[in-house]
């Protein structure tokens, strides 16, 4: 076992898994050019939970899409495990802001959709069953997306990403369209998933509480053009309490830096 894990992390445990190297991104619209990101750098360790916070329009989604390989930086590069990201890869799975489920597939099939090619039917079935148990969807195997609530649908989307068996999960404001109580519950579940599976998680959010409740490191972005303003290590133990005075202190600090 130890031999196996040593092989996997031959670069050493302290080598960052994701390294964003001085990236800039300029979009050209028909009325001119917009710089979305400028000289942005940070890194993320293996099994780390990192949150990227910023106001809407600060380019945090663009940043995540570039890391996912769905978009390209105009300058700079993203390294994953030391290799340059040139497109989507088997070691990164994206969860979008909307669930983006396939309406013609059942919950089970939607999750199985994420399973990477080259698996036998039996393997796919087992993996899907395990993940449905993990995200609490066993009773909804045969349901279609239109029969699910928003929270359920987003759970399926997270399940699909887990079925992809990535090293890193990239989440783009996954809970932003949910009501408060569902959001709190799913945040708790995400924390549990992270502790159980040991995935590296990169969470984009505009919700400061969410970032403080979940992550070990918070990257604060400032808008126009988007760039890293501060990087904040949060070493509070889990589960965290929003009424903790240190929590308040950090929250105030982020609030002042976010604009």
């Amino acid at each position, binding site marked *: 076992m130890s031999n196996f894990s040593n092989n996997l992390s031959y670069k050493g445990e302290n080598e960052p898994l994701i390294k964003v190297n001085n990236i800039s991104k300029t979009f050209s619209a028909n009325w001119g050019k917009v710089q979305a990101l400028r000289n942005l750098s940070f890194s993320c360790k293996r099994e780390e939970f990192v949150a990227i916070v910023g106001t809407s329009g600060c380019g945090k989604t663009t940043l995540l899409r570039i890391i*996912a*390989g*769905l978009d390209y930086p105009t300058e700079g590069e993203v390294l994953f495990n030391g290799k340059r990201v040139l497109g989507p890869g088997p070691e990164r799975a994206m969860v*979008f802001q909307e669930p983006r489920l*396939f309406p013609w597939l059942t919950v089970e099939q939607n999750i199985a959709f994420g399973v990477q090619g080259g698996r036998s039917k039996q393997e796919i079935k087992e993996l899907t069953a395990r993940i449905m148990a993990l995200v609490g969807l066993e009773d909804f195997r045969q349901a*279609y997306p239109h029969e699910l609530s928003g929270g359920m649908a987003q759970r399926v989307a997270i399940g699909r990403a887990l079925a992809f068996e990535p090293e890193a999960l990239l989440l783009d404001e996954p809970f932003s369209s949910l009501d408060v109580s569902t959001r709190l519950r799913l945040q708790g579940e995400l924390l549990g998933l992270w502790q159980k599976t040991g995935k590296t998680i990169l969470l984009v959010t505009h919700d400061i509480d969410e970032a403080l409740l979940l992550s070990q490191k918070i990257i604060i972005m400032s808008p126009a053009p988007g760039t890293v303003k501060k990087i904040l290590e949060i070493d509070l133990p889990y589960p965290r309490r929003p009424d903790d005075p240190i929590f308040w202190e950090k929250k105030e600090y982020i609030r002042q830096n976010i604009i």
Partner: protein
Amino acid sequence: MLYKRLKTNYCKTILKGITFPFLLIVAWEIAARLGYLNALFLPAPTKIWYAFVQMVADGSWAENLLASLQRLAYGFLITVCLAVPLGLAVGKAKNFQNWVNPTLSFLQQIPPIAWIPIFILALGIYEAPKIAVIIYAAFFPVFLNTVQGVKSVDPKLVEVGRAYMLSPLRMIRQVYIPSAYMSIFVGLRLGLSNCWRALVMAEMITRTTGIGAQIWEGRDLMQPDRIFVAVFTIGLVGLIIDIFLKRMECKFMPWKRTNDGKTQ
């Protein structure tokens, strides 16, 4: 309980649907018996019914119907095999439409029947020209609806496919085709009813076998009751085919089976 209610509802719908034709037939029968109608071209419904029984008994009804249905099946299958893959390809290719659109719009204006003489000259009077007409009649609705279906695929779902590293083949099979199902099905239904109509015309002109030929034979022999049997058969078969396709649609697309028809 719910099932029972659904079932009675279904029966009610059918009942409502046949009330009007039933009244019409009764009125027609009465008018015919009272001598208001010229029996030369409007025979009484009972007379048509007797002709039908006779045609069933001597086998000509089934023979002609089967001949027509067989052509329909061949022609339609060939069309689907041609038009759906082609539609998928053209729908995915970005600029291809600009190249073919004017030609397609031009061809679409020409009714299949206008080509029949050419088809007869080129292919004879037996099966080939009829099947050619069917293919021509069904091709455009199936092809154009497939193209439309592929064009209207949600780019967000395509992006999911990209993020999850789908191979091009899996992308077409698992994202594009299911997205286009609805549209393709509309095309198939339109295409099939176009086929059926065009086939009858082709059979009337080539006059060998089939329901269309039977109509013309009825005219030649002054048998209006037989003409009506054939005409009603055409309508009824068309109706049954359409109902069957609608059923298939529900079977193939269980996610559309909900009451409100909303999708994700």
